[in-house]
């Protein structure tokens, strides 16, 4: 635990109120303007900066163990800190797959050792993501990692009976199934959104119905067995309609959208530039608009990055051969500001909700996020909303550089990130590795 105390002077809280945020002993001690403080307190000039609770990413691929050429827990959590995240949920599609207590405990321990963010492993729903047998969900839930989110992300739990059993089984542990909604038969070798553009470009289509039909089935299953269901990276206007209907019926479903599905459209694929290849694929402008409105009205509960690092050679090739996925931790907040705040759809309290409070609640991440009440854990991020700049390689801090935003102008810049009172990002500069590791 860091001993350094901070006073974030003149910050603007999500509510719009001004505050001097005093951080001591890893906690927020006071937000009172003009309150006195000791001489050993480091004063941060937060005039013009927005203070948010530390961001929580429910959907991160840290790649370790198994794919360390793309990312490690250390490099991924550095990217997280640079993006204002203080907690990340690490997806299970590692090698070995996170389907046993041993693997999830290892990932959590690596996160703790790195010291840049809280790492909460996600457990696989099925053994080896094979879609055939349930993995040791109970053992993972009761391990030191305390897993509460289970997902075969990257693959859909498509067998209806297995999905039903998974939804039922996790109730024992207050868990949630996070479904990657993709009918595998309707998307064999699919390369991009199916529509007039995929037909023109000659790329195999990934139809919206392949997502929407799985979501429709799963909300009905969740209703039938009375379980919690979370839908990962929802990407189509039709999916929004299904979720809206399910929520109106009182079904316990939550939904997530990624930053890229809120800003980018399939038109970018005309370049055949594989940086735009992602799963689910970039959709039409109508879908982007529907997703934005759904975030604004609460139909979509959270924004999560689906940060998916890949090495250069996986993207420097023809479209069909390229890997799916984009890095997104460092760009998430600027994209959300550009797509939702600058357009008037979401205020900063809304940003705090969709990027911190709601994902923490879904993932049962207790005591992490807050509304700046004194006594809360000092997970805080300071954002400069007035900064507008070209997103370049300097902004990327993970091991991979497959960002679709390189060269694009985005609003907002994360200046400071505090994780349990420790400054992981200091006026745009990451804390040294050695310093973070010995906290």
């Amino acid at each position: 635990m860091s001993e350094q105390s901070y006073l974030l002077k003149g910050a603007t809280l999500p509510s719009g109120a001004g505050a001097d945020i005093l951080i001591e002993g890893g906690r927020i001690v006071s937000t009172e303007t003009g309150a006195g403080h000791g001489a050993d307190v480091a004063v941060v000039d937060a005039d013009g900066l927005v203070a948010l609770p530390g961001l929580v990413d429910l959907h991160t691929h840290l790649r370790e163990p198994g794919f360390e050429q793309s990312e490690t827990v250390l490099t991924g959590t550095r990217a997280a800190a640079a993006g204002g995240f203080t907690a990340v949920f690490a997806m299970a599609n590692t090698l070995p797959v996170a389907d046993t207590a041993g693997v999830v405990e290892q990932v959590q321990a690596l996160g703790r050792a790195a010291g840049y963010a809280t790492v909460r492993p996600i457990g696989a729903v099925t053994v080896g993501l094979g879609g055939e047998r349930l993995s040791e969900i109970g053992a993972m839930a009761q391990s030191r990692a305390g897993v509460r989110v289970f997902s075969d992300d990257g693959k859909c739990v498509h067998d209806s009976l297995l999905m039903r059993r998974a939804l039922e089984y996790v109730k024992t542990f207050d868990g949630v199934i996070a479904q990657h909604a993709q009918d595998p038969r309707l998307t064999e070798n699919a390369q991009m959104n199916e529509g007039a553009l995929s037909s023109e470009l000659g790329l195999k289509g990934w139809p919206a119905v392949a997502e929407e039909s799985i979501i429709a089935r799963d909300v009905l299953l969740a209703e039938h067995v009375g379980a919690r269901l979370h839908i990962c990276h929802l990407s189509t206007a039709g999916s929004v309609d299904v979720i809206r209907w399910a929520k109106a019926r009182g079904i316990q479903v939550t939904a997530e959208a990624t930053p890229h599905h809120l800003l980018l459209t399939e038109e970018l694929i005309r370049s055949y530039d594989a940086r735009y290849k992602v799963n689910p694929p970039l959709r039409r402008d109508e879908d982007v608009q529907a997703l934005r409105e759904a975030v604004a009205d609460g139909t979509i509960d959270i924004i999560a990055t689906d940060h998916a690092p890949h090495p250069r050679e996986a993207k420097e090739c023809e479209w069909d051969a390229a890997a799916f996925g984009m890095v997104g931790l460092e760009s998430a907040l600027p994209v959300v500001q550009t797509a939702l705040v600058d357009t008037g759809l979401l205020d900063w309290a809304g940003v705090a909700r969709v990027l911190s409070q709601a994902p923490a609640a879904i993932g049962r991440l207790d005591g992490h996020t807050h509304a700046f009440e004194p006594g809360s854990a000092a997970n805080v991020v300071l954002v400069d909303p007035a900064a507008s700049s070209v997103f370049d390689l300097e902004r990327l801090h993970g091991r991979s550089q497959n960002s679709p935003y390189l060269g694009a102008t985005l609003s907002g810049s994360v200046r400071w990130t505090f994780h349990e009172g420790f400054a992981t990002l200091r006026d745009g500069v990451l804390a040294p590795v050695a310093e973070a590791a010995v906290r």
Partner: protein
Amino acid sequence: MRHLLSTRDLRRDEAVRILDIAEDMADVQNREVKKLPTLRGKTVVNLFFEDSTRTRISFEAAAKRLSADVINFSAKGSSVSKGESLKDTAQTLAAMGADGVVIRHHASGAPQVLAQSDWIDAGVVNAGDGTHEHPTQALLDAFTMRRRLHGTASRGRALDGVRVVIVGDILHSRVARSNLWLLETLGAELTFVAPATLVPVGAETWPASVGFDLDAALAEVRPDVLMMLRIQSERMHAAYFPNAREYARQWGLDDERMAALRPDTIVMHPGPMNRGLEISSGAADSAQSTVLEQVANGVSIRMAVLYLLLSGEREALS
């Protein structure tokens, strides 16, 4: 002309110019000495990631008749099949001093990726990429139509008002896509006919009519040109239609449909044909068929394209 990647961005004057230069090249083919010295000292690489003997030898003949040196690089049995990337292959060819790369690739967009990259500075000709485009095929088709319709008075003309029906696997056909854009640019009226399973999603936004019933389309359009596309057997296994018999009955050009055509309707096929499936032998071998003319014209078109790409000033075409 820097690269030829698609017909979609080809302007009308550019397209007509290619066809006119191909007329000049065709004239050379009738001379005793068929060879021109135009590309002497230039190296053209035929980079084929997908088997296509016909297209490769057509490009090879075209390059050789322009006196270029030709290197054939087939991915089968080479380092490419052992996992060498497009980037490494391109850089290897660049290091060998290729001036032009004729690329056939199973992935849509691979020629564009190559042309946009800094891996190689050569002019790139798309010789068929995935289910995207096959621009020289569409150009040779247009050339063939123009010659049949206008004979020696072809130079300078487009295809205004020419009624074309293309039948078959539109969904997977790069020939259909390249013809779509080029025929639109040249002023022709295009109708696609296919089983609904083989019509691409969004085809209603294309500059072509789409029908499912071949007999109805032929009766209504009374086409100047009828083009039959090859049906690949793997489509049957993927349940796009029940079997070959049913396909032939519904969408094949059999002798009966052939007899019902206008006597001056020309019958085209990009080859290789499945005789008895999408086209009967009677139709394929009839005087109305242009199948062999298409092959001969292919060399002239590819000579024109290589000439524009590799001689003199190289400017952006598409």
